[in-house]
């Protein structure tokens, strides 16, 4: 019997340890595990930037960026009725002090509109020294997480110097790191002492076998003394009185206490930035050539703007395929997710205002495979999407969100 109890205890402890391992870090770097159609056709990130990459405890880093919510949202993914812009980070090593969507302060979740354009800003304050890979990412209700591009941030300094105070509406300044801790622990200690006293009151006596024998031999009355009964009656009266007294006292100390807040924030998309009518891109046919890891896309591009334009970049699921023959800003060639020469365009000439041109593009790089996007034609939803960036001679950017089914070629 003892062996059984021991193995039971051991398994419970294993479970306990396992359970305490992972309150939170599940999402970090899990982006490759997500289906390609979710990464390519839900939140389409671009222009994500970090204000600095090495900071001291208490310094702030500002993460800014933009995203387009794909029109061709996958059928199997619930619509983004509650979305929360989060930060993939190993716990609160930096804290989030501010967050904005389209310039509007944003503390809760919000609904996103399909086809909508948004820009965001997150202010993070360094709390614990270390080197962290940080991604902005979206938690989408019922759909999961959509990672944005990641970046290394190094925090130095002394964790003990971290401060974080918040002012309540009644004017009290609260140190978030310690507020309510002494009070909470004191209440716990008080109740634990009382509980332990009750336990000791009984445990000091002969327990199991003697009491069992007394009970079976009809001497039950001797097991509970009149004093025990008096104490029990005392507990029955005093504990509830004390509890409700403390409750009333707390209530009078915090007359302005409010319930937890759970409103959705209402934030409208920006005026159209992507697919704003200046350039229209219609996908004709897309083939993915497995052996050479190349996405061949044929698109019909109509230029409605008054400037000639050229294709500069194709971006999807945080991979960026750059057309090297075009000089354009923000190439970030050293970034491992950038294929600096990854986009080759047949007949790469300017598309004149008013012109409609059929263009063949090849986005080629091992990244399709290493980032596990090449499995998309094995999905039930074997379509892909992404952003096509076009530029006019003055450097002005035109963005189209494209969507197309993909046909694999195995030869």
């Amino acid at each position, binding site marked *: 019997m003892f062996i059984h109890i021991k193995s039971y205890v051991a398994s*419970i402890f294993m479970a306990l340890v396992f359970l305490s391992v992972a309150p939170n870090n599940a999402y970090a770097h899990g982006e490759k595990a997500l289906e390609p159609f979710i990464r390519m056709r839900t939140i389409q990130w671009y222009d994500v930037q970090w204000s600095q990459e090495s900071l001291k405890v208490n310094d702030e880093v500002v993460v800014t960026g933009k995203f387009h919510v794909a029109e061709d949202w996958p059928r199997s993914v619930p619509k983004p009725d509650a979305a929360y812009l989060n930060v993939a980070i190993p*716990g609160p090593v930096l804290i989030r002090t501010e967050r904005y969507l389209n310039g509007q302060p944003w*503390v*809760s979740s919000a609904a996103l509109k399909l086809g909508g354009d948004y820009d965001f800003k997150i202010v993070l304050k360094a709390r614990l020294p270390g080197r962290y890979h940080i991604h902005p990412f979206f938690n989408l209700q019922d759909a999961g*997480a959509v990672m944005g591009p990641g970046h290394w941030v190094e925090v130095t300094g002394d964790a003990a110097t971290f401060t974080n105070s918040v002012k309540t*509406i009644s004017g009290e300044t609260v140190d978030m790191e310690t507020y309510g*801790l002494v009070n909470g622990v004191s209440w716990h200690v008080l109740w634990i002492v009382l509980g332990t006293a009750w336990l000791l009151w009984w445990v000091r006596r002969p327990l199991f076998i003697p009491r069992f024998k007394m009970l079976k031999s009809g001497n039950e009355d001797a097991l509970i003394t009149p004093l025990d009964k008096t104490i029990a009656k005392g507990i029955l009266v005093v504990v509830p009185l*004390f509890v409700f007294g403390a409750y009333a006292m707390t209530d009078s100390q915090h007359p302005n206490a409010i319930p937890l807040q759970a409103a959705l924030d209402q934030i409208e998309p920006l005026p159209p930035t992507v697919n704003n009518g200046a350039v229209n891109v219609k996908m004709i046919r897309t083939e993915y050539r497995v052996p050479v890891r190349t996405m061949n896309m044929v698109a019909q591009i109509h230029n409605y703007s008054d400037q000639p334009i050229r294709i500069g970049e194709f971006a999807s699921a945080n991979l960026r395929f750059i057309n090297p023959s075009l000089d354009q800003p923000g190439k970030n060639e050293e970034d491992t997710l950038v294929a600096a020469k990854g986009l080759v365009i047949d007949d790469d000439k300017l598309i004149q205002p008013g012109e409609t041109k059929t263009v063949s593009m090849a986005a080629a790089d091992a990244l399709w495979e290493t980032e596990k996007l090449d499995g998309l034609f094995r999905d039930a939803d074997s379509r892909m999407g992404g952003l096509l960036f076009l530029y006019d001679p003055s450097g002005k950017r035109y963005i189209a969100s494209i969507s197309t089914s993909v046909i694999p070629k195995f030869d």
Partner: protein
Amino acid sequence: MATTKLLDIPPQPYTGEKARLTRAYDYLILVLALFLFIGAFHLHVALTVGDWDFWLDWKDRQWWPLVTPLMMITFPAAVQAVLWTNFRLPLGATLCVSCLLIGTWITRIFAYHYWNYFPINMVLPATMMPSALVLDVILMLSNSLTVTSIFGGMSFALLFYPSNWPIFGLFHMPVEYGNAQLTLADVFGFQYIRAGMPEYLRIIERGTLRTYGQYATPLSAFCSALLCTLMYPLWWYLGTWFATIRYVKTI
């Protein structure tokens, strides 16, 4: 000599070597029970009450006082069934809740604070100790499953919210944050980043009880009290069923 009389222990059937042996057996069982309940009850609560007990910004006035007592009356009822029926020991609930708190505090400090960097005040657990004490003394004074189910179960649930408000009330002070009114608890949730815990996962006053607005807490508490009166006998029988197998073989 009032003190010695006060601490006199009731008569027992054994003396000498037998008394010493049975006492050694007491300690053996107590230590095993301690570890068993720390592990099992803590696991049970982590899996059922879970986030409601982990995070400040989950402790709403509707679901938290409904779920917590209902899921925490389970082990106390089962252990009481064993300890009271066989030994007339009125400490099952207090023992379980103490073990739970030991397990909970260990994980909050080591897993949540040291390992995952959350400030401890953000992950303060709730206490069920007052409820457990009252449940134990009701069983002892009534010596009745029916009375304990009804009055014990109800007090267990009804005492929960008032016992914990002194710990958590101050986190409900309003703060102007991001052009909105939040509680301090909500601010904790916003600032101290949990990648796996987006805001919308919280279940804050959802469901039909919501209709009653201001009265959400007492309604939830009474709803929980009613359910506890049913949950208590259910787990009592689970306890007796479990105990039969174990003790018949042993003694």
